[in-house]
């Protein structure tokens, strides 16, 4: 075991202590979508009625080509986009009627990493934690630990605007975990990252699931990512869910590889 992984492990252990003990996945659904739809003001029907359930502790991947409606779907679940049809519940709370209750229970790492150009990595994370109600001392400690978990303790005092794209992503992910949420939404978490950064994020997410029982919902069009991280996958195209299942069941039903399944369903929809 390397020194850095030992450091990350000990940081994780301390974090678990701060999280009121490890979270064992509950029996039940962390996320429920019931015919969820979104039509933008310009008439674009981004999501045309998606229904699905994600169990607590599960990792669910939303796969689809660009413009399929993945980001809009996860945006609605994260309360950043208002649905125009159907309903959705996150941790038992309606995303439209109870957005603040939803936000208390989720972490959201967005596709376009939003960071404060004038803040240091540590300040960014501490503010995120404090907005979630943490005391300053707790927020400072958690920021230190989480930066160690994602292998970035050396950038704590650096301005986020000076960091590389991959490092910003990891800081953003760490910031999303400040309140140790039971559910984490990730919108294309590793898009455009080099293999090392991508692997680092995958390792962190896998560790999160196994150590804290976190439910993950992520969007991606990376087949490797979907296979590495997801228990189940839903393929969306043109705003509709065209198929869902475990990676193995999808591969068994429609092709040798997940990519073949993806191409099969998205091409069929495009035809």
């Amino acid at each position, binding site marked *: 075991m390397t020194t850095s992984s030992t450091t990350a492990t000990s940081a994780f252990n301390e974090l678990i202590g701060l999280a009121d003990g490890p979270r064992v996945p509950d029996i039940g659904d962390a996320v429920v979508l019931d015919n969820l739809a979104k039509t933008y003001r310009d008439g674009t029907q981004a999501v045309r009625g998606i229904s699905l359930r994600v169990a607590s502790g599960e990792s669910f991947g939303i796969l689809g080509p660009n413009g399929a409606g993945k980001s809009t779907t996860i945006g609605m679940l994260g309360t950043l986009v208002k649905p125009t049809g159907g309903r959705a519940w996150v941790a038992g709370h309606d995303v439209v009627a109870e957005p603040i209750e939803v936000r208390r229970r989720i972490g959201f790492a*967005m596709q376009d990493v939003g960071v404060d150009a004038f*803040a240091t990595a540590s300040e960014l994370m501490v503010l995120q934690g404090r907005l979630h*109600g943490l005391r300053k001392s707790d927020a400072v400690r958690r920021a230190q630990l989480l930066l160690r978990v994602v292998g970035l303790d050396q950038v704590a005092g650096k301005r986020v605007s000076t960091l590389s794209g991959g490092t910003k992503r990891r800081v953003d992910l760490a910031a999303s975990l400040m309140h140790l949420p039971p559910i984490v939404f990730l919108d294309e978490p590793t898009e455009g990252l080099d293999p090392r950064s991508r692997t680092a994020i995958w390792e962190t997410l896998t560790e999160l699931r196994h150590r804290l029982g976190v439910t993950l919902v992520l969007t991606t069009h990376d087949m490797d990512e979907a296979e590495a991280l997801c228990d189940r996958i839903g393929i969306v195209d043109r705003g509709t869910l065209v198929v869902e299942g475990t990676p193995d069941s999808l591969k068994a039903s429609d092709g040798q590889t997940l990519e073949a399944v993806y191409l099969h369903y998205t091409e069929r929809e495009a035809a």
Partner: protein
Amino acid sequence: MNTLLLAQRALVQFPRNPVVLGFSVVPVLIMYLVFGGLFSGVSDLPGFPTDNYFEFLAPTALLLATVPGMGNAGVALAADLQSRYFQKLLTTPTTVGAVMLGRLLGDCLRLAVQAALVLLLAIALGAHVETGIPGAALMIVMGTLLGIVTFGAVSANLAVRTRDAAAVQAIQPMAFLLIFLTSAYQTADHIDSPVLRTIIDLNPAEYVLRPMRELMLSGYQWDHIAVGFLVIAGLALVALPLTARNYRSVYG
């Protein structure tokens, strides 16, 4: 609580962005010095309320610091929307209102300090605040509140609608118009043009500037101070529903 945290964030940002900090106060101080020097002869006019023109001009300079300066809040909000940090903040249990109010509050505190600098410069130039420190504080409060309900509200709403810092920056000259179309440089009695006098009478900023000048030159005119705060409250009544309406556009 979240509003205060976000205001604190804004305050931490200011010294890290010295260009914005410098350009929001230095031009005002230069304008004060230049106009005060150029028009100093105005104070020789019969019936002019003071023989020190810098004293007359100080409340105007204070408004020039607070009203256009509030535009920086809108620019910062637009920058946060462009970078999507605004949306990141909305993934926490906070509201659009808290994010906007936090920004405005942070800028208020910055502008209050800048306004105090203007008054200190006035005093260094021989001006005297008739009502002392309490009156000076009241002038700063009135000037800052006018900045929030006029240009602060306009720039924040524009930021939310356009998500474009350049667009917000472009309306900055409008703030100067709001102030210039008052008795900023001359008492209303000494302005000959009836059209200009009508415009001044219709300009809400005039009803805030007037009691501020009285605090500087003569004393507490409570009825005028009350009218000033009523005007501010009236503008807030227009700005708040407009802002609430624009909140919705943040959520796709």
